[in-house]
Structure formats: C-alpha cells, structure tokens
C-alpha cells in the first residue's frame, strides 16, 4: 500500500484527535488562539456592521490570520475530498443507519450529509430550509453568545482547564440532544 492509498482510508479517532491538539498548539506557538467562531464576527465587521452596531466597531486587521486559517480550511476540505478519498461511504454504526432508515432516509451514510435536507434540494422543503437557515442562525448566534464554539471552548478551553468552557460544552450537548431527539424527528416527518 503506498502513502496516498494509506491516507485515503478514513482516519481513526486516535489519529485525528491528537492531530487537532497539534493544530491548537501550533497556533499558540504562533502567538494566536484556536477559535473559529470569532471569524463570523470579523466578517460582520468587514461587511460594515459597525455602522449599525457599536459591538462590531473593532479593528478587524488583527483577525486577518484567522480568516486566512478558515480559507485554508476550505482548501483542505477540497484537497481531502478530491485527492485523498477512497470512497464516499461514511463509516457510521449500524445502529445509526437503522435509526435514520426508520425516519425514512434512503441511504444513510452515503456522502457526508443528507442532500435532501442540506443540499440545494433542501432549500425547496420546509424541513431543509429550517435545518439550513435556522440551523446556521443558531450556530452563529449561539457561539457568539457563549463566546466560543467547539474549537474555542471544547478543545482550547477544556485543554486549559477552564470551568466556563465546561459549562458551555454542557450547553452544546443540551442543545444537540434537544435537536436530535425532539426537533429532527418532527422535521423528518414534515
């Protein structure tokens, strides 16, 4: 097996997790902190939100590095998807496949996401529209309200033994469980 074939296998958690810690550490060594959701605010500032709300009147130039990081994320996703994949089947558990089939999803785990809800097709249905537009609004609003997302609170904050981050992560799970167990079943049935 050559190197490209080797990295084309899905990576196990014990490879990915430590590598994420390396990414966080590299950013600290560069004098920055690993936190992606603040980019959403920076984009608001660049788009001129400071004219309407003082909160966005900040010097965005200090955040350019983070926007560049996010641009890298886009490129990384492109590279991995086009050059480092062995197939498009996600290795989710049989139990998850069964749960999703019970909700009427045709091919769970085929591709990264269910196109009928989260692709362009999704925008033509009420459930897809809610998942994409309201889902996005909640992510943007919630991460800024809580002062961080998975990178800022769950990875960086917990690694720095921050109690506020632990409380935020508890919140992430309360919200995620509510959506998964109470809201998605309704949306799948619409």
């Amino acid at each position, binding site marked *: 097996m050559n190197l490209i074939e080797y990295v084309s296998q899905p990576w196990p958690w014990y490879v990915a997790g430590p590598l994420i810690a390396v990414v966080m550490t590299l950013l600290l060594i560069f004098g920055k902190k690993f936190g992606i959701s603040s980019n959403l605010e920076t984009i608001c500032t660049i788009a001129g939100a400071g004219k309407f709300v003082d909160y966005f009147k900040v010097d965005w130039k200090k955040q350019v590095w983070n926007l560049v990081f996010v641009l890298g994320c886009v490129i990384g996703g492109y590279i991995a998807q086009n050059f480092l994949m062995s197939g498009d089947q996600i290795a989710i558990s049989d139990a*998850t496949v069964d749960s999703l089939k019970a909700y009427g999803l045709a091919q769970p785990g085929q591709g990264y996401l269910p196109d009928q809800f989260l692709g362009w097709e999704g925008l033509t249905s009420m459930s897809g529209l809610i998942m994409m537009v309201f889902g996005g609004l909640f992510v943007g609003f919630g991460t800024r309200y809580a002062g961080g997302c998975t990178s800022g609170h769950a990875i960086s904050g917990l690694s720095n033994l921050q109690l506020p981050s632990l409380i935020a992560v508890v919140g992430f799970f309360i919200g995620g469980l509510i959506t998964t167990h109470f809201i998605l079943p309704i949306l799948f049935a619409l």
Partner: protein
Amino acid sequence: MKFIKYLLVGIVFGIILTKAEVTSWYRIFEMFNFQSFHMYGVIGSAVGLGILSIALIKKSNIHSTEGVPISIKPKEGGVLRLLIGGTIFGLGWAMTGACPGPMFIILGQGYSAFIVVILSAIVGAFLYGLMKKRLPH
C-alpha cells in the same frame, strides 16, 4: 507571506476533519444518539493531549514566534451566557451537522449549498451583536 503558515495549518485542519469524518452530519447525529465512540474519541483525545501541551507551554515559559511569552487568556464566566448560548449553538450544531470550522470545510468539499448555512451563521452573529445589551449574560 507572514500569513502563509496560517493557511497551511488551516489546510491541514481541513484535511484532518474531513478524513476523520468529523464534518459529516451523520457523525454528529450518531454522537448525539450515543451510537459510536468515534466523536467522543476525537474530542477526548484532542483535549487529553491539549491539556498536556498547554501544561508544558505554561511550565516551560516558551516564547511565541512573535517573540513574546505565550499567554492564554482565561475564558469569561457568566453561567447564563454560557448555558443559553451553548444550548442555542447545540441546537444548530445538530441541525446542520456543522460547527463554524466544519461549515467552511464542507463548502470546500464541494457541498456548495453550505454557503447558505455560512451566510445564516454570519447573520446569527450579527443578530447577537444587535441584541447583546438586552440579553442576560
């Protein structure tokens, strides 16, 4: 040129999350159904090594590449903002299957419709700035 290192680290991050399927909506659904250890393993081992890494940085007093000692600001408290904000984010995380980083990675993977999710998240951040003074913190 000084930004190229952030671009490279971002590219590596995008590849890691794609290859570990962390950017998959199905993986997030599976995690919130407790049907696999995968996501808990990814986050748990990242935090495990992260704790070690930050402890070492603090102990060694090393300087960043910008020449100043590495200092990590503590996260701000306010239980209400953390719990309510965190819960609202969690609602959206399980709907879109994406946190703010993966949104951009998914776009790069070729799911162009995710531009709608990203724009919605930007509007969400704007709404927070607009309403901040009236929200409990």
